[in-house]
């Protein structure tokens, strides 16, 4: 309570210092009036508020629009009450700070009706249109496109005179043209409007063109609209293709991260690590724990989590290798079973420690949001970053394998274990290092996955079969094969998905791989030669 009072006081002093003289009443007085005024008399109050101090009123208007605006009966303080998961959350309207919960009878809701809502929307748009940020002006314009009326068009016209940002001006032109196309009596004006709209990708433009094609009486306008619509749909299709491609690449990058560690252990040691999925899970839980440890620095937590996840999963991997796999050398099927046992133990361990429920890992702010290229195409930043991360990890791995002495040893063991041993390479150590490396990468994959899905004990299981498919499809012992296979499968999945649905898409991909393996048992890029026999 005290907080809100202080904020109100600050607000008041700010208002006084800026000294708007356009209204005869102070904002403070208006806000108090808002709590008592009758529904049908509320518009003038809101209008006064908008004129007085538009920018500051945005949160208030938005809260009111959502029907979440309440006031405290005793002192007329405004606050927002939102129900989240059945629990009421009390926040200050202006600052958004959380407040102490109050008894229900102490507060009263400020009601709104449709007329008020319409006014609020317009008002919000007007406020945003006069915002100093060109981006928020653009956003406001786009939100206005679906509800153009004469007053908004007039507002837009008047604001256009002083507008300097070209893309905002373009959008304003679009709004004016759309209004003209649907309301103008002159065919030439409508034709002009269609021409102005040509090349725009906004959904509202598309809807308008569709209805124009249907209802337009003038042949010329109709023809022009048809042409515009056709080219518009072409372009939308192209962008949707790019969008699918992006989602495919994104899935591919996840598969790559999950599978590349498996590819190394499988390729070098001929060992199927059924606990690989659990290495991913451990990485994801590491991220979760790191965030719990540093709740105030979520933005930086990933930079701690990535190396830590590598270390955690990597050392568990080394332990598994030393403790179990080493003793099963040359018996791949037994290794498969033993590592499956380990995966069961690890899963149950996590269930016991962290509970079987899923945990939410927060995304740092720099990873949330999206890259809006145009109204049809927007790429989410977290997927973009993960794609880059996957390629980076892959590149690093190639570097390690091709440029370091560890890599040389690993490749030697992969090609001819006995010869490598004879040359004095300590194959047992190489095995442990390889397994640690593969598991560590799985851990980093877990960090990436925690940014896309919830973290739970079954996280690894969800990806393990797909990872196997990638490795087998790409050809064992060939990292490039893994890369190609991961992206091929990811993209294929996302392109089949819209046609058949997600489940059927994964079934189709699985069946395809089963058939493919039978055609080419050694994968896309098999190793050749007598050593490969």
């Amino acid at each position, binding site marked *: 309570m005290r907080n809100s009072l202080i904020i109100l006081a600050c607000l008041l002093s700010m208002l006084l210092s800026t000294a708007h003289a356009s209204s005869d009443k102070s904002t403070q007085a208006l806000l108090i009036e808002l709590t008592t005024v009758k529904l049908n008399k509320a518009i003038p109050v809101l209008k006064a508020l908008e004129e007085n101090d538009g920018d500051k009123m945005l949160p208030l208007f938005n809260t009111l629009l959502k029907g979440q605006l309440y006031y405290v009966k005793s002192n007329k303080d405004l606050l927002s009450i939102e129900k989240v998961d059945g629990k009421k959350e009390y926040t200050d309207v202006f600052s958004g700070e959380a407040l102490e919960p109050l008894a229900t009878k102490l507060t009263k809701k400020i009601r709104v009706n449709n007329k008020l809502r319409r006014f609020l929307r317009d008002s919000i748009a007007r406020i945003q249109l006069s915002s100093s940020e060109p981006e928020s002006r653009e956003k406001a314009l786009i939100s206005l496109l679906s509800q153009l009326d004469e007053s908004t068009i007039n507002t837009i016209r008047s604001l256009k005179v002083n507008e300097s940002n070209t893309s905002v001006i373009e959008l304003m032109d679009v709004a004016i043209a759309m209004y003209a196309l649907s309301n103008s009596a002159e065919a030439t004006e409508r034709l002009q409007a269609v021409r102005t709209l040509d090349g725009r990708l906004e959904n509202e433009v598309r809807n308008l063109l569709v209805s124009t094609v249907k209802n337009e009486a003038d042949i010329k306008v109709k023809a022009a609209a048809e042409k515009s619509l056709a080219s518009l749909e072409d372009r939308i299709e192209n962008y949707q293709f790019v969008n699918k491609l992006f989602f495919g690449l994104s899935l591919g990058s996840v598969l790559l991260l999950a599978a590349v560690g498996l590819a190394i252990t499988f390729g070098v*040691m*001929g*060992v*199927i690590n*059924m606990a690989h999925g659990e290495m991913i899970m451990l990485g994801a839980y590491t991220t979760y724990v790191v965030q719990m440890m540093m709740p105030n620095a979520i933005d930086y937590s990933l930079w701690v989590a990535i190396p830590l996840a590598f270390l955690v999963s990597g050392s568990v991997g080394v332990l598994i290798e030393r403790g*179990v796999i080493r*003793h*099963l050398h*040359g*018996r*791949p*099927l*037994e*290794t*498969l*079973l*033993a590592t*499956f*046992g*380990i*995966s*069961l*133990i690890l*899963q*149950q*361990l996590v*269930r*016991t420690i962290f509970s079987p429920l899923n945990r939410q890992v927060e995304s740092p702010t720099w990873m949330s949001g999206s890259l809006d290229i145009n109204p049809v195409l927007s790429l989410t930043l977290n997927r973009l970053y993960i794609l880059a991360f996957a390629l980076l990890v892959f590149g690093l791995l190639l570097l390690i394998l091709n440029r370091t002495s560890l890599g040389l040893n690993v490749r030697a063991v992969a090609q*001819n*274990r006995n010869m490598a041993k004879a040359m004095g390479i300590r194959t047992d150590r190489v095995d442990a290092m390889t397994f640690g490396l593969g598991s560590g990468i799985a851990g980093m994959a877990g960090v990436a996955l925690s940014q896309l899905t919830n973290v739970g004990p079954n996280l690894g*299981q969800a990806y393990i*079969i797909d990872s*196997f*498919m990638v490795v*087998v499809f790409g050809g*064992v*012992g060939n990292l490039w094969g893994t890369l190609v296979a991961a992206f091929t499968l990811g993209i294929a999945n996302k392109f089949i998905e819209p046609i058949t649905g997600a*489940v*059927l898409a*994964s*079934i189709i991909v*699985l*069946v395809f*791989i*089963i*058939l493919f*393996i*039978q*055609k*080419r*048992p*050694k994968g896309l890029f098999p*190793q050749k030669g007598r*050593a*490969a*026999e």
Partner: protein
Amino acid sequence: MSFLNSVFSTKWLDRGDQAGSRTMPFVLLLLVVTFLASFCNLALPADSVFYVSTYTITLLGKYLCYAMLALAVDIIWGYCGILSLGHGAFFALGGYAMGMYLMRQIGDRGVYGNPELPDFMVFLNWTELPWFWQGMDQFWVAMVMVALVPGLLAYVFGWLAFRSRVTGVYLSIITQALTYALLLSFFRNEMGFGGNNGLTDFKDILGFSLQEDSTRIGLFITTALMLSLVLIASHAILKSRFGKVIVAIRDGEDRARFIGYRTERYKVWLFVYSAVIAGVAGALYVPQVGIINPGEFSPVNSIEIVIWVAVGGRGTLIGAVIGAILVNYAKTRFTAIMPDGWLFALGALFVLVTLYLPKGIMGLFDQFNERRNKNKAVDVQETAS
């Protein structure tokens, strides 16, 4: 790719008598126990010390189904070196075939009272029976399907896989993918198998109510008889020259090819045989537990079967049976006492058995026997001299 060779290079220096001469005594023992248990359930009063509850009978019946499933895995893994991580799929398919028959037997006693359509189809607003449900109200059709569907799938899959010489871990992985694909498919309502919930609420089988003790005993005895039959048949098959070729393929597939055997054909037929056994086991399982759902397809289930076989001792028929019964008994007890502990125990079992007990319980048994025989031999020598 040296590891692909090493898959099969494991030394299998166990008894020359591959199929194990203990099969017949074991079958006898199995049958005696079965009839004794049934007798104790039916003829003794409930307060008798020797009374066996119907719950126990059903549990035993379930174990015997698992034993048959383990036997199916053992036949291909223990004798032919094919590690299938997807045998749960054949089990579930057999189970679904039986489930479809039982579903049709419900008739108009379902919640919606539709004489033709099972409840879930009414719920999905379907108006007629899909083609693959036609005829499933006939017991014999369902029984043919129990064998045919898993057999056919195994044939197609095996033909494709073995012909292109997919072996070792590759094969294991694609069998796992197979059951995973089926799992996803059966979860879909559109498949027409009840989706997520599967098939359940069965009423009766061949006119006998599934709630009756006598029906349960009947199912239990049928399962025991089928298991005996399968044990004897498998014994005969594996003792024949065919069985010798199978073991030869396990130990040196290339060599078997070079002396003129089309190894892929042998493997396909053995795989089909094994899949049919798994299907029959599934069909016997469903009326006893009263439900079949897509969970049976889950890859984890299939891997669990493998550990039953490993515990009992692969490459010995009765080892698989004993392993399945023991592990499942342990599971029943464990989950009752400390449910969270079971997965730890199962995981540890996987690790410990592969590390320290590669021949399973039967291997231990053999070692013990050998030692005793040696001691005996020494004794005989000593007394002679």
